[in-house]
Each structure stands twice: as C-alpha cells, then as structure tokens.
C-alpha cells in the first residue's frame, strides 16, 4: 500500500559533508575571533557565528528545510518564545539603574 512512497527526498551525502565542513570552519573562525580584541564586537561576533552554525544544523542536519509548515510553526514559535523570555527580562534588568543615575 505505502511501500512505494518515500517519506522524504533523500539528500545527497555531499550536502552533509559540506555542512560539516562549514561547521568546522565556523568553529575555527569563532575561536580565532575570540582571541583577538575586537572591542565591543567580541560578544556579538561570537553569538552571531554560533547562531549561523545552529541555523545550519537546524536547516540541513535536522531537515527543517524539508519539513512541513506545521513543524516550521513549532520551530519558529520556540525561538520566538525564547526571544520574549530574553527581551522582557532584559527590559527589566538593563533599566534598573536608571533611577540611581
């Protein structure tokens, strides 16, 4: 009945190797950036590289790119809530000293 239908398209093995190499380069890059003084940019650069690496893993290793729209809603929703958690908390903590200054 269902034996003929593949559930997903099978990706190429070279796509996985390519993502793997990109992740290794990203790791090297982030260590390289971390041991050099970039002024106020050190933290943003480290977090940006980590975010790009995470996005590569989610899109290609976790097959999010081929997943259903409902799955996309859950993935995006997760990070949206994480964003709410951070934004509202920092809206409090980063503004507490205003009264004193």
């Amino acid at each position: 009945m269902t034996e003929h239908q593949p559930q997903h398209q099978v990706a190429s093995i070279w796509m996985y190797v390519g993502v793997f190499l990109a992740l290794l380069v990203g790791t090297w890059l982030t260590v390289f950036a971390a041991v050099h003084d970039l002024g106020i940019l050190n933290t943003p650069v480290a977090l940006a590289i980590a975010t790009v690496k995470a996005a590569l893993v989610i899109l290609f290793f976790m097959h999010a790119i081929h997943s259903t729209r409902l799955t996309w809603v859950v993935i995006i929703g997760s990070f949206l809530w994480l964003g709410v958690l951070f934004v509202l908390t920092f809206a409090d903590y980063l503004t507490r000293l205003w009264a004193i200054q």
Partner: protein
Amino acid sequence: MSDVTPPAGEHAHHPFLQHHFEDLTQQHEASTLGMWMFLSTEILFFGGLFLAYAVYRVSYEAAWAEGAHHQNLLLGTINTAVLISSSLTMALAVYFSQLGRRIATFVTLGLTFIFGSVFLIIKGIEYHAHYVEGLLPGAYFTYHSPLAAKVELFMVFYFSMTGLHALHMVIGAGLLLYFMWRAWRGDFGPEYYSPVEIMGLYWHFIDIVWIFLFAMLYLIGRHH
C-alpha cells in the same frame, strides 16, 4: 511499537504502521512534529539557564571573563569538533537508514556513540582539572582572587549548564545503543526510518546547545 506483528505474508500493513495513522507518511510527520514540540520545551529549559547566565554576565562582566580564562580553550575546541563530527555521523545514519543500508546505518550510529563518548571523556578531564584548581563551587572552592565569589557563581553556571548538557548526552548515548540494536535487526528502510530521524533531531539539538555553551563559557571575555 516494535511488538506489532505483521499480517502473515502480506504487504497490506507495514509492521511499524500504528493503527491510528492513515499511512507511514502521516505517522512520520506526526513523529517529527511531536519531537519538535519536545525540543521546544528543551529550548526553553536550557533557555532559562542561558538567560540567568546572561543577566549575571551583564552585572559581573570582569568575573565572567576571569572564569572564561580558566576554561581549557584547546580541549573545548577539540570537543566542539568532536561533537560536530558526531552530528555528521548521525546525519549519515539517517541517510543510510533511508536507503535501507543496514550495516552502514549500524556503523554510523556506532561512530556517533563513539564520538559522544569521547566528548564525555574529554569533559570529564576538564571537570577534573577544575576540581584540582579549586574551582568546584561549594566546600572545595579554594580559588583566590578579588573576584573569587563571583567567579564561583560563574562556575555554578558552568557546571549546571555543561552538566545538564552532559546528562542529555548520556541519555542520547543510551538511545544510540538501542537504535544500533534495532538497525542491526533490520528494522529501518526507505518506508520506515522515523526513529532514526527522531534520534537525529535529539542529537543535533544537543549539538546546538553545545555550540552556544562553547561560545558563552569558553570564548566570551577571552580576549581581555
């Protein structure tokens, strides 16, 4: 799910298709969605720790940088590469299971297990070094510095976050052994590979958590 017996000599019903699903495609989509729902809770679970770390990092920036300097950057970088390699072999295990290549699936799952174990061993070596250095928070904390109390707080975050991450890895390693057994038994093929895919989602999630932990605990504040 594995105790469902196939109807004798017929292809009418795949042995791993559960009766409440229309077909294997629907079952696969439901599994994937369910796993992402779980990972959603995991993102917020780790997110709480990340947030607490970030709030104190803003307040105690100097102590956080001092704490980061006590991390072994070489071992941390090697461990990141080890975990990324384990993600590659995990992705390949899903790929081979989709093609129904039984031995290749078994071997790549085994390699993932080995990389995961290497990661945990290196993490153990690091933990031991922290203990020797007197950086274990609590009764054994003997580290001296003007910022010692705040560095101790950094180490509390360090051990909580890497410890929770390591716990996930131990659970993942156990699951890998189970799926190696099922792969060896020949459960997976083009029609049915959802368990390997779901295992992959969990494993890659652990990898993502580490990518951020590495940046937060080893790299930020390193240049000072």
